C-alpha cells in the first residue's frame, strides 16, 4: 500500500519541486514584463511630448512622409505612429527578455534567434527609410529637370525613376531580412531587367520618330539659344 502511495506521491512531489524551482523564474518573467510595460508606457509619453515640442509632424509634412502615409490610407499622425512603433518594439523586447528568464531551452533559443535577427530588421528599416528619401529626392530632381527642359513626359519619367528605385530598395531590404534571398534576387533581376527592356523597346519601336525629332531639334535649339535673351 505504501509502495502504491509512493507511486502516486512521487510524481506529485516531483512536479511540486519542479514548480518550486520554476516559480522564481515565472515571478522574474512577470516582473520583467510588468516593468517593461511601465517603462514602455513612460517612454511613449515622453516621446510624444518631445515630438510635439520639436514639431515632428510638421517636419514629416515637409519631408513628404505624411503624404506617403496618406497614400497608404494611414490617417494617424506621424508622431503617433512612430511612438506606437517604439512602444510595441519595447514591449516585444521586454517580453523576450521575460521569457528568457524562464530558462526553458526552446524559449531560450527562440529568444536568442529573435535578438540575432534584430540587427537585420534594423538595417532593413534603415534601408527602407533612406531609400524612400533618396527615391523621393531623385524623382523630384528628375521631374523638375525634365519640366525645365520642356519634356512632355516629365511626370512619367519621374515616376519611372521612383519605380525603379523602389524596386531596388525593396529588393535590398528583403535581401537584408534574408526572406527567400534567392527568390528575391531572381525576382528583382527579372523585374528590373524587364522594366529596362520594356522601356528600351517601347521607346525604340514606338519612338523612332520622336527620338529623331528630339535629336534634330536639340541641335537646332542649341543654335537658337546663342541668339536668345541673356538672362543675367
Amino acid at each position, binding site marked *: 500500500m505504501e509502495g502504491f502511495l509512493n507511486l502516486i506521491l512521487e510524481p506529485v512531489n516531483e512536479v511540486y519541486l519542479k514548480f518550486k524551482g520554476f516559480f522564481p523564474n515565472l515571478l522574474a518573467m512577470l516582473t520583467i514584463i510588468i516593468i517593461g510595460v511601465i517603462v514602455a508606457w513612460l517612454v511613449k509619453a515622453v516621446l510624444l511630448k518631445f515630438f510635439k515640442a520639436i514639431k515632428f509632424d510638421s517636419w514629416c509634412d515637409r519631408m513628404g512622409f505624411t503624404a506617403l502615409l496618406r497614400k497608404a490610407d494611414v490617417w494617424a499622425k506621424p508622431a503617433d505612429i512612430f511612438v506606437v512603433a517604439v512602444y510595441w518594439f519595447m514591449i516585444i523586447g521586454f517580453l523576450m527578455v521575460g521569457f528568457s528568464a524562464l530558462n526553458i531551452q526552446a524559449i531560450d533559443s527562440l529568444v536568442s534567434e529573435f535578438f540575432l535577427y534584430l540587427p537585420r530588421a534594423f538595417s532593413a528599416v534603415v534601408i527602407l527609410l533612406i531609400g524612400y528619401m533618396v527615391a523621393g*529626392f531623385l524623382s523630384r530632381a528628375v521631374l*523638375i529637370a525634365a519640366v525645365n527642359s*520642356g*519634356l512632355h513626359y516629365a511626370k512619367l519619367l519621374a515616376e519611372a525613376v521612383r519605380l525603379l528605385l523602389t524596386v531596388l530598395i525593396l529588393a535590398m531590404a528583403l535581401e537584408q531580412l534574408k526572406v527567400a534571398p534567392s527568390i528575391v534576387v531572381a525576382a528583382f533581376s527579372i523585374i528590373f531587367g524587364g522594366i529596362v527592356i520594356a522601356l528600351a523597346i517601347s521607346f525604340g519601336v514606338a519612338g523612332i520618330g520622336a527620338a529623331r525629332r528630339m535629336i534634330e531639334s536639340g541641335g537646332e*535649339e542649341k543654335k537658337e*539659344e546663342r541668339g*536668345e535673351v*541673356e*538672362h*543675367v
Partner: protein
Amino acid sequence: MADKADIVVGIPSYNNAKTIGHVVRAVDAGLAKYFPDKKAVIVNSDGGSKDGTSEVIKNAAIDHNALLIQHPLSMAHRITTPYHGTPGKGSAIRTVFQMAVDMGASACAIVDSDLRSITPEWIELLISPVLKEGNDFVAPLYDRHKFDGTITNSIVYPMTRAFYGKRIRQPIGGEFGFSGKLAEFYLKQDVWGTDVARFGIDIWMTTEAIANDFRVCQAFLGAKIHDPKDPGSDLSEMLVQVVSSLFDLTEKHSDKWKEVKGSIDVPTFGFRYHVGLEHVKVNVERMLGIFREGQSNLKGIWLDVIGSGDLGEVLVLGAQSDQDFRFPLKLWTRIIYDYAIAYHKKKLPPQHLIKSLVPLYLGKTASFVMEVEEMDKDGAEAEIEKLCMEFEANKAYLVNSWK
C-alpha cells in the same frame, strides 16, 4: 611687405586669352590717361588658365603716343597671380582685395576678362567716383537691350531695391569700383568658404556695401558686350546661383531690410546715351511651353510654396492663349516673396526649390517680352519701374510672413 599703390585694378580670368589682351590694354590706357599721377597696379587673378592667358597679359602693349595721352609718372605694373581656395570668381576677387589692402590702395576696380566693349573711360568712371567724390562703391550701369538681363529686371533689381532702399539698377553687373576701406571690409567677412567664393560674389559685394551703409553710386558705362556665354550653360543653374545668393543675403540681413521703407536714387556718374544694340531673338512660344509643362507637373511643389490662392491664379494664366498671356505684377511679386519665405523656412532642398521657379520665371519673361515688344527702351524701363513699385508696396507681406 608689398609695394604701395594708389589704384588696383583686378581682372579675374580663366582661359580668356582671346579677349583679355583688349581688356588689359583698355585698363592700361585708362590708368595712363585719367590717373597719370597715381601709382597703379593691374592684378590678374587667374584660375589656372591653360590657353596662354598670362602670356597675353604680359605682351599686351599700348602705344601711349598713338593714344594722345599724357605720359604717366610711372607705368602701371602688371601682376598675374593664381588665386587659392575654392575655385570661382569669388576667390579670384578675394585675391584682388588682399592685394589692394596689402598695397594700401585708395581705390580699386574689378573688370571682367571677357569684355569686348570696355574702353579706357570705364576705368575713369569706376575709379573717379571713389577717388574724387568719396564714394565707397560704384556699381555699373549699362545700356542693354530691353529683353536682356531678365533675371536682373524681374528678380534681383526689384528685390534689392525694395529690401535695401537704394536704386542700383545693375546689382550683378560684373564690373565694380570700390574704396580701399571697402576692400578691407570685404576681406574681413567670413564668407570665403561659402558659395560667395564660387559664384554670387557680384550680388554679395553690392548688398554688403548697401546694407552696411557704405556710400554707393553707379556709373554709366555704355553697352556691355562680352564673349558669348557657353550655350550649354543651364538656365536652371544660373537661376539657382543668382537667386540662392540673393536669398542667403536676405537671410543674413533680415534685421536690416525689415526696417527699410521705399527707395531712393543713388548718384549716377557718366554721360547717358543710347547705343544701337543688336536685335535679340526670343522664343516666347518655347518659354510658354515650359511654363505650361510646369503647370501640369509641378502643381504639388508650387502649392506648398505659393499656396492655393496664388496657385489658382497661376492655373488661370495657363488657360490664356499665347497672345493674351500676361503675368500680373502683383502675382509675380507675391510668388518671389513666397519663394524667399520657403527658402527661409527650408521647405524644400534649395536646388529643387529654386529650379521649380524656372517655369514661372519663363512665364513672367514671356509676358514681359510680349508687353514691351512695341515699346521703346524707356517704355520697357517704365514697366520695370512698375514692378519695382509693386515689390516695395508688397514688402509688408514678406515682413509679416518672415518668422
